[in-house]
């Protein structure tokens, strides 16, 4: 990880170490580095091409005489964007700290006047911003392909973008927490399983829960810790042209998204602060 010396070697680090401006500088430096690394790895390009191919592939049925495929093509487009952006998100978040450890670049980082919390927060912001950039690129490609094929998208699309971006905060915080508690491979596997099965898990809970058991208040409190990634996903509403949703659930998810992301990050930090590197 190459970070510029001016950012990480301030003249008066004792004064600046805990300051917001200092933390902001650290986050910015990590974010720039993470974005560069993502662009250099080329994963994103392949996924962008795959997304475009999937959308064009589903549209190609029209060349064989099947008309009226708008919903199907839109479904394919946004499903591809959702799956690929989640995969990129998990991979980016899961490699932030373990790769610093395995490459031993964590030593020069911690030798600088950065607290472990600042390091973790910087990595989290870097992963989050990288996820958002990747997601927006994929969504843009899908939108352009839909535009080229003359398939309209309703205004709820903008709410979809907003909530997805908030949801990536949860994804990054949760995955980073897992990557600090277990190996990188295990963290990726579990994060992908929980993200893809998010809706199934919560619905299974509803199916098998006995409402006469009298523990509803506990359930409501504990539900915040469930893998609620699917709550941030308006894909189906976009695909089936639903009207935009009201402001209250959006505000609720905004108010829930950031604290829960920081909660998972804090859980990881509790492990990381005492971890021997």
């Amino acid at each position, binding site marked *: 990880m190459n970070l510029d010396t001016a950012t990480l070697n301030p003249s008066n680090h004792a004064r600046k170490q805990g300051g917001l401006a200092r933390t902001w500088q650290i986050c910015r430096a990590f974010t720039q580095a993470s974005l560069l690394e993502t662009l250099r790895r080329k994963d994103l390009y392949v996924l962008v091409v795959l997304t475009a191919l999937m959308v064009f592939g589903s549209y190609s049925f029209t060349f064989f005489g099947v008309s009226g495929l708008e919903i199907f093509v839109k479904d394919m487009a946004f499903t591809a964007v959702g799956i690929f952006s989640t*995969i990129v998100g998990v991979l980016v978040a899961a490699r932030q700290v373990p790769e610093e450890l395995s490459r031993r670049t964590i030593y020069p980082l911690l030798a600088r006047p950065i607290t472990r919390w600042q390091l973790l927060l910087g990595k989290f912001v870097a992963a989050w911003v990288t996820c958002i950039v990747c997601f927006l690129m994929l969504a843009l490609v899908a939108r352009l392909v839909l535009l080229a094929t003359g398939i309209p998208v309703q205004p709820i699309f903008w709410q979809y973008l907003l909530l997805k971006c908030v949801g990536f905060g949860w994804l990054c915080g949760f995955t980073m927490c897992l990557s600090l508690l277990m190996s990188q491979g295990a963290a990726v596997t579990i994060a992908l399983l929980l993200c893809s099965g998010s809706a199934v898990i*919560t619905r299974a809970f509803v199916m098998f829960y006995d409402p006469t058991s009298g523990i509803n208040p506990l359930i*409501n409190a504990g539900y915040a810790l469930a893998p609620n990634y699917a709550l941030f996903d308006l894909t*189906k509403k976009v695909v089936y042209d639903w009207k935009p949703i009201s402001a*209250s659930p959006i505000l609720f998810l905004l108010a829930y998204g950031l604290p829960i992301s920081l909660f998972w990050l804090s859980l990881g930090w509790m492990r990381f602060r005492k971890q021997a590197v």
Partner: protein
Amino acid sequence: MKLAFIIGGAVLLVAMGTMVMGALPEAMKQPSAQGSQDVFEEKPTTSVVGGFRTTLAGYLFAKSHEYLHGGVVMRPATQAEIAQEARLASHGDQIKDHHGGGETTGVPEPQRDVRGIWGTVERQTQPFMDIRHHGHRDASEALPLFRMMTWSDPHFVEAYSMGAHLVFSGVKERNVEKALEFLDEGIANNPEAYVLRADAGGYNFYNLKRLDKALEHYRAAASVIERTPDSKLDMLHAEQTWGAMVQVYRRSGDKENEIAFARRGLGRFPTSAPCRVTFRRYGLPLPAEVAAKK
């Protein structure tokens, strides 16, 4: 990078599997009355490679359900949910007969949701509706999927039956001729599928009043039913098909055949009301073995 190639490879594999399956001789084989699964389960090669086609067709079938309901996901209600008086699917327009017994929404209704605010948010962010007397999106949006399903798996009998039903009962316009055209294609691909013959007979009899065409289809369906053991038949559907055939004979004034088929029908389906009506109508005694079962 590796992962991206794995994903790309998987997509290619599915596409190639579909093409390879088309070239296998088993793909040309006709299924029994039950549909394609009988063919695909015979050989390991077709199970592994050809399974893609039925899987794809099955996926599209599930998707078509979702399309009709604007993305609202449904599932069979559990016994506990039925006991809790969960809302069950019922229809508010002309598109019927596509829900099994007791379906409810995946996202529960507010009265049954213990999650409070979390449930409220989910009902806002995910497609949700009250499924009692629910309406449907225009069926024409789902029709391309049925076209793709039957391309992918020409032995998918249920897709032909359901697709024809949707063409027939489209929310915007009804088109019985198109429905019959689609069914004819299904019958050509699945001559042993009596369900399709019964559907075609039904449209000809009830909607178009073409008794000769209806009889042609019902006779073909009855022939398959007679050759098929009970264990491989949906007995209720088969009984209804037979009963409808007897009714067509009655309507066309062919007393001799009506009685003959009613007698044969009661031998297989002793409770068939249309067959019993024939005997009562002409003052004939019921066959002894049937009368004993009354």
